């Protein structure tokens, strides 16, 4: 088991660095105008621009830039924002934003697991019945319709029906409800659909037939064998979900004007803030690699086959 964890950790570490490197190199292709505030860009002559670019080091060979970036990274310095929050250190900006995204993300995970998992179980248990059809209908809508469309319509219509505020206000708790729910809309469907599929797959296995032949009732087999086994792949995705909540939802934070990380990425793109784009993109990528890694560690806990085959040698 230890061997597996060590091996997997080293692998993830390598992947993280490759991802950072690749993304960093891709970012060298960013339009150079993104290193200037709008006013500066317009007032400067081409020579002045070049001189400025040279002074901040973006004309250095990419590898040198990467080296400098990494050195700064270890000092906890991600650079400074250019246009969105001029001259402000990016780490400072992030510290403030992460709280909002994490709070909403956490709320949405609780809501979506709380609804999605029972929904998936019911759909598998009553496969082909009304409840399965309703669940399927819901998930088809959520998965096939572009999320922007249903999130926007949800915001507009539901806020009108229940008289809730359409935008987020820090000190009005009722304004937190809509974004938290809308953030869960698609993940409810995600949990329900996959749990249902895994359960249906499990139910066809020989050992489930054998468990039934033992005379255990269908509901007992469902609960103690089918659900238990089908939950394993779902559980593996949970660390990833937990980690990525920090990054917030791009669309929702923008729609409701939540001052979180997701909205920040969109702002930084719209205002062409190269440094901020770079920092955010890298953070998102690292979080995603970490999530996969933690999921793989979790397998060790939930699946005895991996735990033990590895310990044997």
């Amino acid at each position, binding site marked *: 088991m230890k061997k597996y964890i060590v091996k997997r950790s080293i692998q993830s570490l390598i*992947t993280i660095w*490759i*991802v950072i490197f*690749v*993304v960093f190199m*891709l*970012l060298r*292709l*960013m*339009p150079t105008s993104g290193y200037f505030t709008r006013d500066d860009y317009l007032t400067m002559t081409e020579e002045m621009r070049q001189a400025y670019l040279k002074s901040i080091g973006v004309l250095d060979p990419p590898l040198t830039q990467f080296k400098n970036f990494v050195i700064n990274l270890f000092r906890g310095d991600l650079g400074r924002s250019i246009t969105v929050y001029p001259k402000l250190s990016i780490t400072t900006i992030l510290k403030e934003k992460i709280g909002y995204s994490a709070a909403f993300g956490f709320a949405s995970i609780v809501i979506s697991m709380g609804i999605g998992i029972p929904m998936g179980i019911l759909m598998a248990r009553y496969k082909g019945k009304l409840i399965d059809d309703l669940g399927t209908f819901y998930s*088809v*809508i959520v*998965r*096939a*319709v*572009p*999320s*922007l*469309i249903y999130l*926007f319509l949800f915001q*507009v219509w539901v806020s009108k029906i229940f008289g809730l505020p359409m935008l987020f206000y820090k000190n009005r708790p009722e304004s937190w409800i809509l974004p938290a729910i809308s953030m869960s809309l698609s993940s409810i469907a995600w949990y329900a659909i996959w749990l249902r599929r895994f359960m249906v797959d499990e139910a*066809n296995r020989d050992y489930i037939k054998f468990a039934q032949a033992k005379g255990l009732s269908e509901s007992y087999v469902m609960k103690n064998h089918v659900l238990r086994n089908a939950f394993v792949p779902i559980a593996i995705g949970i660390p990833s979900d937990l980690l*990525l909540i920090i*990054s917030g939802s*791009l*669309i929702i934070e*923008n729609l409701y004007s939540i001052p979180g990380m997701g909205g920040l*990425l*969109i702002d930084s*793109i*719209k205002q062409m803030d190269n440094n901020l*784009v770079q920092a955010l*993109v890298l953070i*998102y*990528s690292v979080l*995603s*690699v970490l999530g*996969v890694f933690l999921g793989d560690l979790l397998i060790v806990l939930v699946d005895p086959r991996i735990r033990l085959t590895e310990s044997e040698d």
Partner: protein
Amino acid sequence: MDKMYYNGIELTDDLFDKIPLDEHLSEESGYSNYSYWRSTFRTFFKSKLSIFLVVVILALSLFSFLYPVFSSTDPQQITLDVDKWNMGPNSENWFGTDGLGRDIWARTWYGTRNSLLLALVIAVIEVGVGSIIGAIWGYVRKMDRFMIELYNIITNIPSTVYLILLSYILEPSFTTIVIALASSGWIVEAKFMRNKVLSLRESEYNIASQCLGTPLRRVVSKNIIPHLISLIIMEAALTVPYSIGSEVFLGFIGLGLPLDTVTLGNMVNQGRANFMLYPYQMLYPTIVLCIITISFYIVGNKFADASDPKNHV
């Protein structure tokens, strides 16, 4: 001798004559009538919903591609006549007009055509390239290590972030969106095909081909691709809603197609801005868009179910 009876039938002597063995009949009797494709289509078309949606897709595509032929309305025609701006649906402009007096009905069909075209190009490239590389990847062991690493890197960067990044770096255009979507999508398709091919590769009929010295080219075309066709159709169908959704999303964050290109995505995003005052400007194109994405999504999934031999019951 007494007459003998069995169940009221007289058993005459000649009934006990020997009859010759018919070799042909004895060989034929085990004949099974199962055919993969017949069963797949039978299962698929058993569902009335599938038939209906296939008809819907065909009708919408045909209509949008033929629309320019029998209509002379120019979707870009703006008018300076203020009365003709933001007109609600009427007998002349069935879906009304937008803020510049352009006919939304005409724009919707031009947009449908462009969006379908975009989705189709992406589907063909993504699934086409993905299947071919996937088939080779699964078959050539030496590639595996490299490809798996590449897959890990590409998929570890969240697809939205990747999409944003590429669109940010490149100029917004039709090609950019195709490149952005297809360049991350192909490897997911390839991995999917590779897993399928890996299981096919070890099956005895492929070993048999190896024993007969069949060249890779023919192994891929005769032994592998025919087994993947149903997967290819399904994946291509499912790529369509994803591509259309991504186009809407990119438009939302300001990285979509240039605003003068008529696509459903652009129309939805433009309509959203005026939604409070003129909801129809967003709703009509949205309805058409949703019909398309939902139809493709369901058809893809239904076909996936139908093509699984387990469901040929």
